[in-house]
């Protein structure tokens, strides 16, 4: 998939449902019940639960096996020729080329992925919603300017620009000026707020025409109050569903940047860096877990969020028709 795909253009993966079984029909309570009973939701929530459990249990597991995520144990885990030994030394999934525990690092990797994914998507949600509210409500020249910005932002190639932005963080000695995690969060948010802005703007323009807004204006409410108390509560549910849709894309964004060597850097455990390490050293040939453990973890995480967000859109998204 293209990195940071335009998630709003991806259709729901289920076909048209017609008649009384249309998932977007029925009362809110009925829809909620149906949502939680759907096997796809249950599977998705189970996968997300598994990842959360891994992230929370990471320090505990590290304490039990006695291997910290960035500690190196070359004597116990590497052979004389420097290749990881498989099995029989307390390293459940073996070690990497520096003698670090792959299992412990994979669990810590869940913390990194979730943290960066959730924080960057939330920033994008806040910024995008704010811009969309203003553009949609004020309209006119403000709207045109903001829309032009959105157009230009879309024409930037994410990875190439991100590569240049990352060099901004390089100090005079080639060291990082601020924690690279925040740089990654900034870049991923920078490239995903536009989708929220477009979504919210569209909704606001529609809601603005409704009678309760005219009533509020008529009763003398100010602009800020109307936006915050009348419009925001009506666009927020859609924006939050969209948050769940964008989250897996942003997790992929972080992993891809780390894979290219400009995101989270070793020795901090990130799934992207671990796979890059497996590729660059060619160690996946002797130690497949160095590749497979982070690959499977990324897959489980993204699949879990994809399953749940697809169901959310299917059942609750006011902008979709339930197809």
């Amino acid at each position, binding site marked *: *998939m293209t*990195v940071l795909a335009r998630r709003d*253009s991806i259709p729901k993966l289920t076909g048209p449902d017609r008649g009384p079984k249309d998932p977007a029909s029925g009362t809110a309570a009925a829809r909620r019940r149906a949502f939680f009973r759907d096997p796809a939701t249950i599977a998705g929530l189970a996968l997300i639960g598994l990842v959360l459990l891994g992230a929370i249990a990471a320090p505990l597991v590290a304490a039990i096996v006695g291997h910290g995520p960035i500690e190196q144990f070359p004597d116990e885990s590497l052979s004389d020729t420097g290749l990881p030994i498989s099995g029989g030394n307390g390293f459940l999934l073996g070690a990497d080329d520096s003698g670090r525990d792959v299992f412990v690092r994979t669990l810590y990797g869940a913390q990194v992925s979730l943290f960066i994914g959730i924080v960057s998507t939330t920033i994008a949600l806040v910024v995008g919603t704010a811009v969309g509210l203003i553009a949609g409500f004020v309209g006119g020249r403000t709207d045109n300017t903001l829309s032009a910005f959105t157009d230009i932002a879309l024409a930037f190639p994410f*990875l*190439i*620009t991100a590569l240049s932005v990352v060099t901004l963080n390089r100090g005079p000695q080639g060291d990082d000026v601020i924690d690279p995690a925040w740089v990654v969060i900034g870049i991923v948010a920078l490239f995903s707020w536009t989708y929220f802005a477009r979504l919210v703007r569209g909704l606001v323009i529609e809601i603005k025409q409704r009678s309760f807004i005219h009533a509020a204006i008529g009763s003398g409410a100010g602009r800020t109050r109307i936006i915050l108390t009348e419009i925001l509560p009506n666009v927020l549910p859609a924006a939050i569903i969209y948050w769940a849709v964008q989250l897996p894309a942003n997790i992929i964004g972080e*992993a891809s940047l780390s894979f290219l060597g400009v995101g989270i850097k070793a020795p901090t455990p990130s799934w992207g860096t671990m*796979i890059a390490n497996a590729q660059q050293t060619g160690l996946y040939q002797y130690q497949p877990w160095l590749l497979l453990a982070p690959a499977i973890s990324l*897959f489980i995480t993204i699949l879990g969020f994809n399953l749940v967000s697809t169901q959310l859109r299917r059942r609750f998204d006011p902008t979709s028709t339930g197809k």
Partner: protein
Amino acid sequence: MTAFARTQFLRTRLTRMLITVIAVVIVTFVLTQVAFTNPAQNLAPPNASGETIDSIARAYGIDRPWYEQLFGYFVKGPDIQGTPTGFLNWPPSLGYSYQQQRPVTELLLEKIPATLSLAAGALMLWVIFSVLLGVLAARRQGGWFDKVTSGFSYTFLSLPTFVTGMLLIYFLFYQLSLAGFRFFPSSGYVPITESPGEWARHLILPWLTLALAEIAIFQRVIRSSVLEVVNQDYIRTAKAKGLSDRRIYFGHALSGALNPVLTLGGIELAAIIGGAVITEQVFGIDGIGRLAVTSASSGDAPVVIGITLFSAVVFVITTFVVDLITYARSARQ
């Protein structure tokens, strides 16, 4: 739409495209100015005197203020190492790469065939398999084939490009060669002019890597558009008249379902450059994507600006072409 309105539409669209591209270049230019500090000092040998650094800066024209450099980029700047700068030259020039010591235009032209081969092959696979799988899944909605393709979709939508690539290398290159089947190479690129067979053999895994996620999305889009169409009256009439299933699904229904496919296709095609950066990195293909990674990390500003410009142009042109086709189709109907 009258001829006048059509010209008007074209004019606004083209102006907006031009403005977008210019804005992208300006932003990238400023960004590289800020991000790549002291390019001359990086080029100079360690412990070089201030004088040496100054002369290097003069040689590459980076001692001038940034607005002069930007003006030179768009219009006409001084020659650098015998290479002209600026668009008002013939052929238009994108400047000179400090790190590679070569004109940027020449560098880009040299790397484009590899990236183009990658993108074109992936696109072929993507279109053929999406149509085939999508239509077949729609024919028996809810049947076993539909369920299998739906599972396939979820799987490949949930794998980042680089993970798909590494897994293909692990299973189809490494495991197969352990089993004695050494067909797929794990990296490298052979130009088609050298040997078409080797060219294709080296590109099969990269093509798959780039195409799988797209097929995952598109066969679902095609499936739901086809389902939407076959439930409409004119298809029912065609069915009642005894038209064969194949003609109904691959003929009528597919052409009726083409609009959403085209729209999404344009967006994804334009974004393929991003996918190429990753795929080229995974498979060691020496194309535009790898050039982008090396130039950005070594602070080679002219190349970074050139590549950003290239992909922005690809983006606006593909979106424009897709809009034109959609527009032409809607005008005909």
